């Protein structure tokens, strides 16, 4: 059945392992591309074949387009799975694959271009009738323009980088004075982080929930959604705990948002797996934020409640196969929660916690799924981000999924690393979390959102 005989996996950590596993189950030869720091990684050990793509520093390996394409050629891989992060949403990479005759397992270069350009992307959404957050119609060049736009849409407003993503570079301004102070800094930051100092201004929605819809699209124009994920539990715009379905949505709102998500994907002729992100306000109005044109970190919870293996679907769709089913063939079965286990110390302002795992015990049992590359004796490379495991619980009900998560978090041991597990244990016991009433500001109740700079302990 599979068109591909060999796939190169251009990523690391848990997602590389996730893709290796999908390939193996599909009978496809998995080639792990790894940096010098990851030579002993689980993805390399479990892949059928592996190839070094450069030095530890990401810019010389996982972000090096030439090295990765060379690796695909020398190993004879017909397709490349980019995972998430790194090159997953880089238009230049997708185009380079195309011109080298290697299939990029993901959206089209045109999709990536539009998804990466928030201003152009938003214009498409407005045209398609998808509700968007009131904002400047394009980049904002001067403080005077910024002031007049903010006046028009009403404070508080956010300054965002046109080229940015992942929550970085966002500044919230409550009044004219703050806007004057933050505007020039935001432009400089955008230039430094994304190589493009264009910023735009957007209304800041207070106490919103972050709700996103999983999309799958084939090459024949079929686009469906696979319901929502509730991702409101975040710190500084980085998601920590996700669940599917959302305790906030009823069937009516779900249908409405789901339809808008499909319209959004159709508006840019989306292909392969993607995610349409919305903010949902307290009145039940929702606004399109962006399309994430990759497999998401939190994809497993959708897999658990739909029974659809999204990574296998990505591969199948990339090979040109039709979807073969539509939304009416799918239904929400049960409830899934994911906790992102980060090697960070919640007691010390989430500072990273590198080190070697001397004592490891993974949770298991009924309703537990663990996506991780960790093992006893594993040394966390200092070069990569701190997401080290995704613990997923699944049960017939939300209450059941919470109980399983709490139990599984309690079992998980990885000494001597500091992790976010103690924070999640507190969340699982919190009455507001248990009753499903929270918004994107929720986590600040547990951990003050203070500035790292504020000062040191000497």
């Amino acid at each position: 059945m599979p068109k591909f005989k060999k796939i190169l996996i251009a990523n690391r950590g848990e997602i590389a392992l996730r893709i290796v596993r999908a390939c193996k189950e599909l009978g496809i030869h998995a080639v792990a591309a790894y940096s010098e720091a990851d030579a002993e990684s689980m993805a390399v050990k479990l892949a059928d074949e592996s190839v070094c793509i450069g030095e530890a520093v990401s810019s010389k390996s996982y972000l090096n387009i030439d090295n990765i394409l060379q690796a695909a050629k020398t190993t004879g891989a017909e397709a490349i799975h980019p995972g998430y992060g790194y090159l997953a949403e880089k238009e230049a990479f997708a185009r380079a694959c195309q011109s080298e005759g290697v299939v990029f397992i993901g959206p089209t270069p045109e999709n990536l271009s539009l998804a990466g350009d928030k201003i152009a992307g938003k214009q498409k959404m407005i045209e398609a009738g998808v509700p968007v957050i009131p904002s400047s119609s394009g980049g904002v060049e001067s403080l005077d323009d910024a002031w007049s736009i903010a006046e028009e849409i009403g404070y508080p407003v956010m300054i965002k980088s046109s080229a940015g993503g992942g929550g970085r570079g966002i500044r919230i301004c409550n009044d004219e004075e703050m806007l004057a102070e933050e505007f020039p800094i935001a432009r400089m930051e955008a230039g430094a982080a994304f190589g493009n100092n264009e910023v735009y201004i957007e209304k800041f929605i207070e106490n919103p929930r972050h709700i996103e819809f999983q999309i799958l699209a084939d090459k024949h124009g079929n686009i469906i959604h696979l319901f929502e994920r509730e991702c409101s539990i975040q710190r500084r715009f980085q998601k920590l705990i996700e669940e599917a379905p959302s305790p906030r949505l009823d069937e009516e709102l779900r249908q409405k948002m789901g339809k808008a998500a499909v319209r959004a994907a159709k508006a840019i002729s989306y292909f392969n797996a993607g995610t349409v992100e919305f903010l949902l306000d307290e009145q039940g109005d929702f606004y399109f934020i962006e399309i994430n044109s990759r497999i998401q970190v939190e994809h497993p919870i959708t897999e658990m409640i739909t029974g659809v293996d999204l990574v296998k679907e990505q591969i199948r769709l990339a090979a040109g196969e039709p979807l073969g089913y539509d939304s009416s063939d799918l239904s929400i079965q049960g409830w899934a929660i994911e906790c992102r286990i980060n090697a960070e110390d919640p007691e010390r302002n989430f500072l990273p916690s590198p080190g070697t795992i001397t004592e490891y015990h993974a949770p298991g049992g009924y309703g537990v799924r663990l996506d991780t590359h960790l093992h006893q004796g594993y040394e966390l490379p200092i070069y990569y981000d701190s997401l080290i495991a995704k613990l997923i619980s699944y049960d017939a009900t939300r209450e059941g999924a919470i109980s399983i998560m709490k139990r599984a978090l309690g079992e998980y041991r990885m000494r001597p690393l500091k992790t976010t597990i103690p924070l999640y244990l507190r969340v699982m016991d919190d009455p507001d979390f248990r009753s499903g009433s929270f918004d994107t500001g929720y986590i600040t109740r547990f951990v003050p959102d203070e500035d790292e700079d504020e000062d040191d302990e000497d």
Partner: protein
Amino acid sequence: MTGSGGKRVEVKAPMSGVFYRRPAPEVAPYVEIGTEVKKKQVLGLLETMKVFQKIKSKISGRVVEIIVENETPVKDDEVLFVIETD
């Protein structure tokens, strides 16, 4: 090293990571040997798992040694700088 009789204070890496002497490749280093520094002045950066921390001087004084080169991996507690006070 020239034993001017001052007190020598080591500045160590708070954890393992990659040590940087400058905030960006095209910018001058934060300090050089001989730079007079104040307490809490930034001497360098440490990148650990994509997070940057500032390495600050614990005292006011003069930079007398820079032990680690720019963009080099360091271990937890490794000495990065020596500051001498009068």
